[in-house]
């Protein structure tokens, strides 16, 4: 039985105190490919790198990939970054901009590809895939406990090779009725903390179908100290019969 994804929501919010243009998260959805990337705030032009990663993943077809294909794909993204950087470097840039560019940009990433009946996820860092099935959490990948956030995650660098152990790959069944969420780290941590406290955070995620819904939830949870102040990205799909 073939499946198809139905988009419920895709959107992003900058951390409180930052302007929209300063958001360093990026996301992309295209048919059966979805991805989010969380640019490291320590980096410069992280939003450019996050954007390259998210878009490039959705331009490709990752359902059949193993690790080797993913690493090749990263190299292609790094070449795109290098071209972009070369163009930028033609400008008359301040000394600190050049210094920082030399360090490169970094991002956490999760990409999801759907095939006829399966999902395939590729993760580097602490962006997560959450799967809700039959009113319960069927999957939380690659992080399963709220305690595991905050340790230095492995990130995808724009100018250095990704370490082998930094990539995590998983595949699973996708069943009609499943809800799949790609979430950036602050929201993932919020979700898992709620789950560990016996709550049903997926009920709240299911109510989000507009930017205003996301803003309202995020604002309320931040105010209560339940959601760390950080950029937030959410991509929500539901699996339907084809």
């Amino acid at each position, binding site marked *: 039985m073939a499946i198809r994804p139905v988009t419920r929501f895709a959107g992003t919010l900058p*951390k409180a*105190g*930052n302007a929209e243009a*300063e958001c360093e998260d990026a996301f992309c959805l295209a048919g059966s490919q979805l991805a989010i990337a969380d640019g490291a*705030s*320590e980096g*410069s*032009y992280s939003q450019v790198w996050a954007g390259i990663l998210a878009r490039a993943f959705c331009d490709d077809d990752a359902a059949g990939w193993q690790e080797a294909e993913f690493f090749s794909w990263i190299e292609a993204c790094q070449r795109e970054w290098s071209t972009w950087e070369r163009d930028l470097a033609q400008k008359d*840039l*301040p*000394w*600190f*901009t*050049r*210094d*920082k560019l030399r*360090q490169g940009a970094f991002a956490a990433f999760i990409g999801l590809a759907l095939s006829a009946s399966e999902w395939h996820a590729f993760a580097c860092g602490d962006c997560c895939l959450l799967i809700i099935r039959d009113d319960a959490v069927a999957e939380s990948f690659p992080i399963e406990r709220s305690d595991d956030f905050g340790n230095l995650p492995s990130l995808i660098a724009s100018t250095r090779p990704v370490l082998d152990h930094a990539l995590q790959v998983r595949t699973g069944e996708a069943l009609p009725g499943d809800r799949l969420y790609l979430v950036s780290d602050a929201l993932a941590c919020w979700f898992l903390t709620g789950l560990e406290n016996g709550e049903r955070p997926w009920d709240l995620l299911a109510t989000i179908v507009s930017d205003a819904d996301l803003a309202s939830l995020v604002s309320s949870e931040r105010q209560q100290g339940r959601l760390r*102040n*950080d950029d937030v990205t959410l991509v929500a799909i539901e699996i339907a019969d084809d």
Partner: protein
Amino acid sequence: MPYSAEVSRATPSCFLFVIDQSGSMSDPFAGSSTGRSKAEELADVINRLLQTLVTRCAKGEEVRDYFDVGVIGYGQSLGHGLQGPLAGRDFVPISQIAFNPVRLESRNRKVPDGAGGLVDQNFQFPVWFDPVHSGGTPMCEALGRAKSAVESWAAGHMTSYPPTVIHVTDGESTDGDPSPVAQQIRAVATADGPACLYNLHLSSTAAKPITFPASESELPDEFARLLFAMSTPLQDRIRREAAAEGYAVSDGSRGFAFNADLVEAIRFIDIGTRVSGLR
């Protein structure tokens, strides 16, 4: 929990460097063969640190004002250490530091060429602080000025991460016991906690450096014990950073280094100025 305030443009934090510029700073570090004085080496350390702080705050072609920075120099005279458009103020925002080095020096370094070899890379080394060395060591007066500066800053930034004062000296005070004024600095506080005072003593002899000691018993003389007592104990996060860098630290470890050589001085200042994720 103290020292947990977010460092952001709305709630910046501050660093104040209090730098000994006495005559003895014209001597080299013990055992040094570079022919450079402690004053010259220290000026390089401060310039590199300012460069690091600027780069940390850089986003694209802008610099976000996460920090206010001040430099006080003391020796023959006592005054603000930054020059030009930055002169005459206790603190300047990091963006102004970024755009106002006194000069950009052109330097060369060797970098990997990607094919197993090395290639020359020209880069710009910004300079804000030039070496000075003459006169005595009016430590009390200098720390008194530092105390006024952070007190005034804290009063205007009550929700910010507390000030960090890094005092660098190569010898004893010539204007009395600095302990009382050091305690006054450490009594300055924001809602997030008391100011931190770290003391970095630069070596005059070839004795081994002692960094982040946890007790007076580890120290060789009265002067070291005095500076130790003046230093703030390392807060948890900084202690973890120090441990990650290979230092043997414990609960009582203080932000103090005695007999530091150049390498140790750089490591000490680097650890003392690390802040958690800049937002």
